């Protein structure tokens, strides 16, 4: 569906995307994981056939976006990072005008709009003003709008950023249904749990480059341990405690606020910690996550 190789996007002299290669297969759910400013949105805008690449090869649905931009875009559904709904239109009217841009007949759009509002759980809000919707509802409306043309690929740029937990879960549920239906999803996120829930395969990007690629589970296996022990000794004591923790688990990571001990068995690592006479203020044993993978690869946490 999408084939990118050595994709580069430069703004003046700085490269926002600096030689990125990936492929997305039909029905696959593909994620770009990285911190703000990693080049995720720029990549999405190139894949969305909106922003022209500086160099490299890019094919979407077998077409070059430089030549067939409108043809490609007519088969995409795009959920941008910032909602761009028309606040001057009512909820349902947003879908009606948008469907027209794809050359669809009015009667078809009207019926489709009602189905999509049902899907987005907004059927009772169709006469509402966009401004009166909550953030989660606006997001769902934007997703509904992106589906008006039965797209072959759905592009979602940070779909749940800024939403409260409940709104995120509703959204994930809707996206998971799309995934079950076999929709090709491409999404960016800086949330590990989102990537783990929704993506079959992800690339971890930082500073415009790919740091790692694989399924969430494979990435964790390759770059982290099974479990992580998080211990806090107090901001000024973490570094000193880390010296005494040497040798426990596979590896240590000292962060300003806590020490991470990577280990196959977190409980055992905690027991060893206390055996060495250390008394952490708090301790937590958890499963390893993509955050750990990212930390390992870049030495920085995802959300700073």
């Amino acid at each position, binding site marked *: 569906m999408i084939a990118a190789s050595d994709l580069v996007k430069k703004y003046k002299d700085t490269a926002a995307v600096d030689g990125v290669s990936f492929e997305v297969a039909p029905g696959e759910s593909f994620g770009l994981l990285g911190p703000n400013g990693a080049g995720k949105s720029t990549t999405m805008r190139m894949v969305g056939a*909106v922003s022209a690449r500086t160099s490299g090869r890019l094919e979407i649905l077998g077409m070059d976006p430089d030549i067939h*931009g409108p043809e490609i*875009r007519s088969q995409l559904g795009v959920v941008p990072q910032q909602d*761009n709904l028309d606040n001057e*239109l009512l909820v349902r009217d947003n879908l009606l005008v*948008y469907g027209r*841009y794809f*050359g*669809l007949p009015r009667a078809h759009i009207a019926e489709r709009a009602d189905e999509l509002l049902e*899907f987005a759980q907004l059927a009772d809000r169709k006469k509402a003003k966009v401004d009166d919707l909550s953030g989660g509802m606006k997001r769902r409306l934007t997703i509904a709008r992106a589906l008006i043309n039965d797209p072959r690929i759905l592009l979602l740029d940070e779909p749940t950023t800024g939403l409260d937990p409940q709104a995120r879960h509703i959204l994930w549920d809707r996206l998971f249904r799309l995934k079950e239906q076999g929709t090709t999803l491409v999404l960016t996120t800086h949330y590990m749990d989102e990537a783990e829930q929704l993506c079959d395969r992800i690339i971890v990007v930082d500073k415009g480059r790919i740091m790692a690629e694989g399924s969430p589970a494979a990435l964790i296996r390759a770059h982290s341990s099974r479990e992580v022990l998080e211990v806090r000794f107090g901001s000024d004591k973490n570094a000193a405690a880390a010296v005494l923790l040497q040798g426990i688990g596979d590896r240590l990571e000292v962060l300003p606020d806590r020490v991470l001990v990577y280990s196959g068995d977190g409980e055992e690592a905690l027991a060893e910690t206390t055996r060495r006479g250390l008394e952490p203020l708090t301790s937590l044993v958890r499963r390893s996550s993509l955050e750990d993978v990212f930390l390992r690869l870049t030495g920085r946490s995802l959300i700073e």
Partner: protein
Amino acid sequence: MTSLIPSSLTPRAGLDDATLADRSRRFGAWYVVEHKLRAARSFFWTLLATMLGTPFLYLFAFGVGLATLVVDSRGGEFVDGVGYLQFVAPALIINAAVLLAAEEYMFGMLLGFKWNMIFIGMNAAPISGRQIVDGMFIYVSLRALVTASIYYGAVVLFGGVVSPWSLLVVPIAILTALSFSPIAAWSATLYEDRGQFNIVNRLILMPLSLFSGTVFPLSQLPVFLQWIGWVSPIWHGSELARQFSYGPTEPIWLTVVHVLFLVVLAAFGWRLTVRLTTKRLAR
């Protein structure tokens, strides 16, 4: 292909990819117009009140009120063998069209780029920068058409029409409105309105209107100020409209200059707006 959500509909109304892409390519600008018209419905009553109220207020103030003063001092006729109402009416219509166009070129453009970002949304769909600009300018033309027609109707009621040719003031008003399109190009480069739009309105458009032979002939101004009229689309539009309303009052070459001036400016503004809009969208 199957639909992504439980649906009883044939996906994409059963139309193939090529047909749909072709329709977007051909009618995209009109879809933009459709969008703008649907959005205008929510402030339809404000628009209608402005379109109906403005002509009556202005015609009454100038054509009736001010006219008594002017005509009293001149003995019935104002200039070129017509009364003050006949003189001022074409220019008032031109000015009304210019005012609404400038509003769209400024606020309409920044609305689309920034305030509710509908241009970004259109462009994520198959609509190109050029189609967005075309759609905006068609919408401006439609608004100018309706406003100028209503205004013309009011002039008829006030008894300001001498010749049936004066109806040409409507297309001339549209052309003059379009000749202000360089403003739209400028707006396409803005990322913030820090009061620039108000400055344009108060320090450029308002004075331009006053010094463009709207309420008194340009020849009344001292020579060193008359150049303002010569570079002003409002003057060219108003004079052009006057030629058909009660003219000719000037040599034919000057009439041709009016048309050329407006057409060239409109074409220049359109090309520049398309270029800057496309560039901004493709960043």
